[in-house]
């Protein structure tokens, strides 16, 4: 079999493309503004085609979802019934916690939280990456006042924060991402811990910041701490404590937390138009 000779031209082209790719990666990692603008401009140009395709494909996707998740929904239903009965058991505790939350809000001067300017946005797409499922896309962007780092809530509480907003759409980084940190406060205590995502379908975890002596209880609500360096406004419910594990080596309590915000089958979310003081804090906060 005769092996054709490859010209140096193809190697040269490859070398140029690889150099371009590495340059792009480097520039993007440094937050090079023109590249971000190029991304926004290109996605804006493609968006009308996506909108047309969306009207065609959405019914197909919905049909697929109902077919493939029928079994899952049934299991979810059973799980929810179990959780409901557990929650009823903790009703007294929770009622107390809600009162404590209201008191805490007053204490932290967060009475006007409800008056915080918000915007409702439709969830337009799930993650388009197999490797990073902790992202959703919403149909509002900088044109609607959305900025990097703003908190996003759904029914029940905080679900994530805005990442890389475009003109008419934005990405939301979900709190289930193991690389996301949220400063949280157990209602009724002054203990601030760092909450991390546990992955898709997994509970959240507070691994640091809660000393053994802290009076936290199962069923207590965790809220955003609203501390000075936090990109999230304070007082938003994040989750309820499911389990408390005592780490005797570090003398800390590790909390397993069920998110209160709806994270699955989202159709609409609310963006809190709260500009964090330090919006460059990446995934930490």
């Amino acid at each position, binding site marked *: 079999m005769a092996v054709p000779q490859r010209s140096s031209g193809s190697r040269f082209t490859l070398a140029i493309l690889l150099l371009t790719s590495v340059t792009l990666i480097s520039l993007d990692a440094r937050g090079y503004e023109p590249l971000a603008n190029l991304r926004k401009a290109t996605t804006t140009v493609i968006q009308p*085609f996506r909108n047309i395709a969306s009207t065609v494909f959405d019914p197909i*996707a919905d049909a697929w979802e109902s077919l493939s998740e029928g079994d899952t929904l049934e299991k979810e239903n059973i799980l929810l019934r179990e959780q409901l009965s557990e929650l009823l058991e903790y009703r007294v505790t929770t009622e107390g916690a809600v009162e404590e939350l209201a008191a805490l809000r007053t204490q932290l001067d967060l009475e006007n939280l409800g008056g915080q300017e918000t915007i409702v946005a439709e969830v337009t797409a799930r993650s388009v990456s197999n490797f*990073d499922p902790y992202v959703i896309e919403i149909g509002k962007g900088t044109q609607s006042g959305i900025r990097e780092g703003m908190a996003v809530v759904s029914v029940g509480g905080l679900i994530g924060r805005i990442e890389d907003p475009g003109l008419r759409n934005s990405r939301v980084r979900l709190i289930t991402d193991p690389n996301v940190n949220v400063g949280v406060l157990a209602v009724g205590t002054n203990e601030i811990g760092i909450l991390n995502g546990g992955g898709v379908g997994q509970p959240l975890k507070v691994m640091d910041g809660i000393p053994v002596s802290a009076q936290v209880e199962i069923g207590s609500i965790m809220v955003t701490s609203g501390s000075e360096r936090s990109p999230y406004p304070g007082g938003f419910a994040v989750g309820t404590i499911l389990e408390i594990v005592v780490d005797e080596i570090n003398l800390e309590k590790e909390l397993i937390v069920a998110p209160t915000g709806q994270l699955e089958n989202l159709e609409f979310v609310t963006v809190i138009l709260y500009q964090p003081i330090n919006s460059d804090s990446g995934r930490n906060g």
Partner: protein
Amino acid sequence: MTFLRVAKAATVLLVLLILQLELFASIRFFGVMPEIMLGAAVASGWHGGATEGAVMGFISGFLIDLYLASPIGLSALTYALIGYLLGIISELIAEDVERIVRTVISLIGIVLGLVTFVLFGELIAEPNLYNKNFGKILVVGGLYTGLFIPVLHFLMEWVFHQSNFRNNQIAMARPQRN
């Protein structure tokens, strides 16, 4: 590339991108969707050769990069390499190879592309790429994308050649590369 070929390539890549974003992102098996743009890079390498494969791979990777949280250029880098590699392989093997062989080689190319993407991602410390679902993504993602390989080859053949599917053998009109 002639103007007609560029127009065809742009149309195909745009259609595939929109299908990936609007249809396949929702139609998942075991939570995994097909990597259509990577499949396009593989098929373009096969039909266009090393240079065209690298260029098409770069563009398809760049397009999908616009929608990923990973840095722009990571998919472009990976897909350009895979397109180039498939171009070289297609030159080395007999042109009248059975379609099943072509499909298997394409499938290997896709899996290699996924591994390379994660490897490069890890090298630049991009979070979330290597996770406990990596094996599942390789197997399910590879096979799921594999279902679309015949269609992708058909499209890339349309881009790079005249239609010449006359029998169940691969088309014979691959351009000669010097």
